[in-house]
């Protein structure tokens, strides 16, 4: 019997050339639409609401009133800020999944300033001090795993992960220390009368300063990553440590410095969360956003401006889902579920941008 070799039905190969941006974004767009359709089906099967109305209600939840719009903007800025912080670490292929902890440490530093200094300093001096201290606290928290990685090549993924939980316990400690009223096991709003350490209203809006700080950080990070010597070093270490060593870069130094920057920006996110949003601290101050932001940074290929789009999309979904959940008296975890589905689709779509799939065709069999 003659054995015939058949061409496989599906063949996968790397694309010869990089797709033009419009095609790449087209593929991502298709994935996004696909995921939104699936989300609509799921919401429909739970609450039996017309899918178009679902997205109407979600839009209403995210932008329905001036206040809701600003909350959406505030949350987008928060997520963006963490994404910006993670970008240099991930570009260096340093798996910093410890943003949660770095945010919390920054938040603790801010809250400590608010609790202990209260009105001892004018707000104009207090806010910059809080900014610096939270950046420092977050930076140190990021530096610890980086130091071990640089010295002994300790696995950073798990180290940073464990640092999250240590930070959560440190936060619980301070929550118990500062609890107000006693026995409530929560800190409550800090300085409700004096508003010391609160972001001031600018142009009549509470969250203007959040936007200014984060957008400034976004531009600065873009310039740092793309146009500075240190940014170039980060890129080289990320692509190949051996190349970096050959080019006489000190890899340990780059790792430690980058994680200091990364942790510091995440610490600033903690400052934004405490001082610019909730005016309190709890173990849910980071609220899982340290993990979501990893995906934001990764999908945006570390470009801060693309991150704005992705964070806005995720926050829109989050706010919208919370609105639907409260209308139907369901709990708002539904938003994480929908976020997950959308991220699965976008993650999967990257494959079709980088690879092409060829089916077996009957025409070219002659050989």
């Amino acid at each position: 019997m003659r054995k015939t070799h058949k061409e496989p039905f599906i063949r996968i190969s790397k694309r010869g050339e990089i797709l033009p941006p419009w095609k790449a974004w087209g593929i991502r767009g298709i994935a996004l639409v696909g995921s939104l359709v699936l989300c609509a089906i799921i919401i429909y099967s739970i609450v039996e609401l017309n899918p178009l109305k679902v997205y109407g209600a979600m839009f209403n939840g995210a932008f329905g009133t001036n206040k809701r719009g600003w909350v959406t903007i505030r949350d987008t800025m928060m997520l963006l800020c963490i994404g910006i912080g993670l970008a240099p670490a991930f570009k260096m292929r340093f798996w910093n999944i410890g943003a949660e902890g770095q945010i919390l440490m920054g938040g603790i530093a801010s809250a400590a300033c608010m609790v202990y200094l209260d009105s001892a300093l004018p707000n104009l001096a207090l806010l910059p001090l809080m900014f610096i201290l939270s950046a420092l606290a977050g930076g140190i928290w990021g530096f610890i795993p980086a130091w071990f990685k640089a010295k002994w090549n300790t696995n950073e993924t798990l180290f940073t992960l464990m640092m999250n939980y240590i930070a959560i316990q440190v936060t619980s400690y301070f929550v118990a220390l500062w609890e107000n009223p006693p026995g409530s096991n929560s800190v409550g709003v800090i300085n409700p009368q004096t508003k010391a350490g609160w972001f001031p209203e600018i142009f009549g809006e509470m969250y203007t300063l959040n936007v200014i700080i984060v957008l400034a950080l976004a531009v600065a990070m873009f310039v740092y990553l793309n146009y500075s010597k240190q940014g170039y070093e980060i890129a080289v270490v990320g692509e190949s440590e051996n190349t970096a060593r050959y080019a006489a870069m000190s890899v340990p130094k780059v790792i430690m410095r980058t994680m200091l920057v990364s942790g510091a920006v995440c610490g600033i996110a903690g400052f934004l969360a405490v001082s610019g949003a909730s005016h309190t601290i709890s173990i849910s101050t980071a609220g899982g956003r340290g993990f979501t932001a990893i995906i934001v940074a990764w999908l945006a290929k570390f470009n801060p401006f693309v991150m704005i789009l992705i964070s806005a999309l995720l926050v829109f979904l989050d706010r919208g889902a919370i609105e639907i959940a409260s209308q139907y008296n369901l709990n708002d975890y539904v938003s994480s579920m929908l976020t997950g589905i959308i991220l699965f689709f976008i993650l999967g779509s990257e494959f079709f941008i980088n690879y092409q799939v060829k089916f077996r065709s009957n025409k070219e069999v002659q050989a």
Partner: protein
Amino acid sequence: MTELISLFQAGIVFGTVILYGATGEILTEKSGNLNLGVPGIMYLGGIMGLMGVFFYEMNNPDPSPILCVLIAMSCAFLASMLGGLIYSLLTITLRANQNVTGLTLTIFAGGFANFFGGSLMKLAGGVGQINVATTSAAFRATLPFVPNLPALPRMLLGFGFMAYLAVVVAFVVSWVINRTSVGLNLRAVGENPATADAAGINVTKYKYLATCLGAGISGLGGLYYVMDYTKGTWDSAGGIESLGWLAVALVIFSTWRPKRGIWGAYLFGLLSWLYFYIPGLTRRSMELFKMLPYLVTVIVLVAASLRRRREDQPPAALGLPYFREER
């Protein structure tokens, strides 16, 4: 003495949850897949097991305990495998980044589980919280003579069957990985997929199977948490998630050996509860004590990287995608 016994009991309950998670994850990581979706998979196992028996108990006024257990375990195992399948599809076939995919799985499954855990009763038209009393009792049942035994053997035999199953599963996984040709092939895939491929091993098949089966085992940890620790109700305080991350940590602690994972799991369980039994702690210092398991993991992590023993290293291709045409 009674305090010590209750500490051990609490420690072993948490340890069992962690052990399931870690055993599954070791199997997965041996194939070179670093699945950070373990907490999510444990969530899936917990909620789907709970939902399966919830509907069974709701529609049957007189549920049979054996059937309850079977339904819960198969629902949990299959749902967790499905979680592993999503992860495999994205990382193996579509070559998405493993860490990012794993975290996404945790976000998705955490949302899914807590959403249905909190809303299922309302969606099913009832009031209050889910409660599957019969099933939970079946999961917590001990041998009939155990309550009459003296303290020490009662402590050792006083758990539901899943606590012992976890140890058996760990031994079986250890045996498969180290003593069978399938295990040898699996380790080859995790160490160097290109070489394994050249030797005629179907890398994709091994990765898929190890990841899905590993996920199924991990998911049982979530089921055990729900049926034993929270007694057949849903707790949305995120207990499963933090134990899930401890399971990921235990994989490192055990240096990818399921047998070493057994005592490691109980140690982690004990450390998680230690704060409760140390006299004279204020609420504040308790919070600091709760850090212990994480601190210990960090120390072990650093110590392992300092010693650099070859047999303690992770699978060489851990976390790296494999694509035949890319070399």
